[in-house]
């Protein structure tokens, strides 16, 4: 079933609801009008007039009101609405009902830990107000203490990033200089790129001498490793103040489009997180996205197990079926022995046979009848001795 069916049903309900409420209001309006007109008529009658006039007016009003038949109208419109509404809610149930809590194991997450994770998630996005607000709402001073160090690091990061956005590279440069060694270990040329930005900025404003001074002081140290880059930059000196006419006008590191600047900002964010020992993506985002991908499989499993092995769901040490996640969630090498169909472990590690095929240690022990004689590889015609097999590490 697809979403459009639901949308149609919803539209019908919404329409009927509107219709019904207009009908109701119309009916009420009409009744009011009728009564008011009678009131006016009565007021125009002399006090001492015959009471039969009044009687006539009243019975006229009664029959008029009957004519409007308000109750019938109200009921009819309401009935239609209810039919639509109940159809709609049935559809909703059908479409959304898989009760996702079925796949839930009753373990209590440590609330303080969870709040620390969420607060950190906000801090790393620069949402400091929100992070603080959460810690506050949770009234958990130990959580606040636990996230304080990371918070101040991320405050630093956003101070640098915000300055960069306004074209001020000082904070970024000083951070890069302090962490120069570690950036190089990460094979990042961020420091050079930042100096490059600064140098081009000076050139753009036309000050050739200032640019030269800057280059001597800051770019020279990079000359040995990044010869090409430095030569290009020095070449730019000839076009000071009219860089857009230079042969480098299309070079993104010289023309410095906003895309290029964003790229550098992003690289700084990545490196900053990396040096902090933090991942590039928010781990909360990663875990939740994995959960969204994995939940359907877990739900199916839970439904099957609910029938037969309800207890096991709460206690199992390993899921009985694979939960396939996208490539981006593959952080570790998992070796599954193709003979035993079991995951490798310290006791049963993967072994490389002389033919190049890999099976688990236990499989080799079995095939060689407890290492007593040569055996044939299960995947090719070659024979092997146990002594020729060696353990490998992924």
């Amino acid at each position, binding site marked *: 079933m697809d979403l459009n069916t639901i949308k149609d049903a919803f539209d019908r309900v919404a329409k009927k609801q509107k219709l019904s409420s207009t009908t109701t209001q119309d009916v009420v309006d009409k009744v009011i009008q009728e009564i008011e007109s009678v009131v006016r008529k009565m007021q125009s009658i002399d006090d001492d007039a015959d009471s039969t006039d009044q009687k006539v007016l009243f019975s006229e009003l009664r029959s008029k009101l009957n004519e409007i038949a308000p109750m019938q109208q109200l009921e009819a419109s309401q009935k239609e609405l209810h039919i639509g509404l109940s159809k709609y809610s049935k559809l909703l149930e059908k479409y959304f009902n898989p009760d996702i809590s079925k796949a839930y194991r009753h373990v209590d997450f440590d609330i303080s830990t969870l709040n620390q994770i969420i607060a950190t998630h906000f801090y790393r996005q620069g949402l400091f107000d929100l992070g603080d607000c959460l810690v506050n709402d949770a009234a958990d001073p130990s959580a606040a203490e636990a996230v304080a160090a990371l918070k101040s690091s991320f405050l630093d990061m956003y101070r640098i990033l915000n300055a960069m956005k306004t074209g001020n590279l000082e904070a970024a440069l000083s951070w890069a200089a302090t962490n120069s060694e570690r950036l190089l270990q990460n094979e990042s040329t961020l420091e050079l790129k930042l100096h490059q930005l600064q140098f081009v900025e000076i050139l753009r404003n036309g000050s050739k001498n200032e640019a030269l001074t800057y280059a001597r002081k800051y770019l020279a140290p990079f000359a040995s490793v990044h010869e090409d880059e430095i030569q290009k930059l020095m070449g730019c000196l000839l076009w000071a103040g009219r860089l857009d006419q230079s042969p480098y006008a299309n070079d993104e590191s010289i023309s410095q489009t906003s895309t290029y600047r964003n790229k550098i900002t992003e690289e700084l964010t990545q490196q900053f997180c990396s040096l902090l020992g933090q991942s590039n993506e928010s781990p909360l985002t*990663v875990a939740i996205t994995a959960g969204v991908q994995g939940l359907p499989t877990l739900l199916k499993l839970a439904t099957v197990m609910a029938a037969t092995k309800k207890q096991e769901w709460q206690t199992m040490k390993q899921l009985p079926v694979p939960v396939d996640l996208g490539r981006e969630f593959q952080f570790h090498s998992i070796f599954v022995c193709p003979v035993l169909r079991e995951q490798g472990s310290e006791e049963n590690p993967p072994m490389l046979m002389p033919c190049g095929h890999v099976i688990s240690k236990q499989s080799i022990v079995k095939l060689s009848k407890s290492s007593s004689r040569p055996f044939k590889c299960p995947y090719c015609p070659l024979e092997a001795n146990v002594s020729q097999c060696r353990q490998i590490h992924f």
Partner: protein
Amino acid sequence: MIRVNHRIAEKEVSAVISSVSAAADRCEDMTSEEAVTHLTSLVSRLQGLKRKLEEGSKVEALQAQRCRARLEHLESANADNLNEWNDTRLKRILVDYMLRMSYYDSAVKLAESSNIQDLVDLDAFLEAKKIIDSLHNKEVASALAWCAENRSRLKKAKSKFEFQLRLQEFIELVRAGSTLPAIEYSRKYLAPWGATHMKELQRVMATLAFRSTTECEIYKVLFEAKQWDYLVEQFKQEFCRLFGMTLEPLLNIYLQAGLSALKTPFCYEEDCPKEDPLSQEGFRKLAAQLPFSKQHHSKLVCYITKELMDSENPPLVLPNGYVYSAKALEEMAKKNDGRVTCPRTGDVCNYTELVKAFIS
């Protein structure tokens, strides 16, 4: 909501009509002044109704807008804006968590700053907060009003929440020593539940004999303050069920599923890459009681490049037994005159010494 509005309208309109016919029947006895006053009062009554209906339809329109926004949000999920959609989903999940944890300020702040008010149930939870607060203050009135408002649906779900509220009110009367009012109360409000909940009813009635100072365990607990906390919990459950929400926060459900799917024995080793959430202490703690994931087939990731190793980018084995992807080692060899260095042991060897591993 729709139904409530309609019922009010029906009642008012029919009352006015019958009042008109009644007046018509006895109009001979009325002076015209009386008749006018009478009719005018009917008109103002109807105008009151009209105001109420207008208000009601405003609320209805708002609710409809919310439903529509949610449907449109669901529909808007496609490949192009997947990141944005995922981001919104995480925010929704976080707002849900905050609301359930009673972190209202954070919830409102997050919903407003990311403009997803239509996608979360702020109002419903704020309404619930009032009831929870009053239960914490040992007042049942607003909870009872909520029960009355949702009576038919609660009944359908076989909820006994109202009964539990009544029991607590009765207990409070006993605590205060108001025996007669307590009996009166039980006749009126507890007796109707007798058919279905006789046992509990009897137990509570017995407190009339034992009083609040009883040392008898099964009655003593009825007077404890934690009964009110229990009512709060009960209310939260009923509330979630009524709104078709899961009892647990969505965050917990998704996080549990995700961590279980990600959890491998390698996550707990020192060289777990930091992109893995389970490299962090906090996530490890949360995952401690969850099962490990399972694989039926080998999935190999290069330690150096983090890329998948397969027939395109096959795993190569160093003499020391460590395995890296062909891509990574080729590059290393190119830069270092054909020599490769194992990043984990520091062992150096020639590219020619490497052998290909076949993993089925």
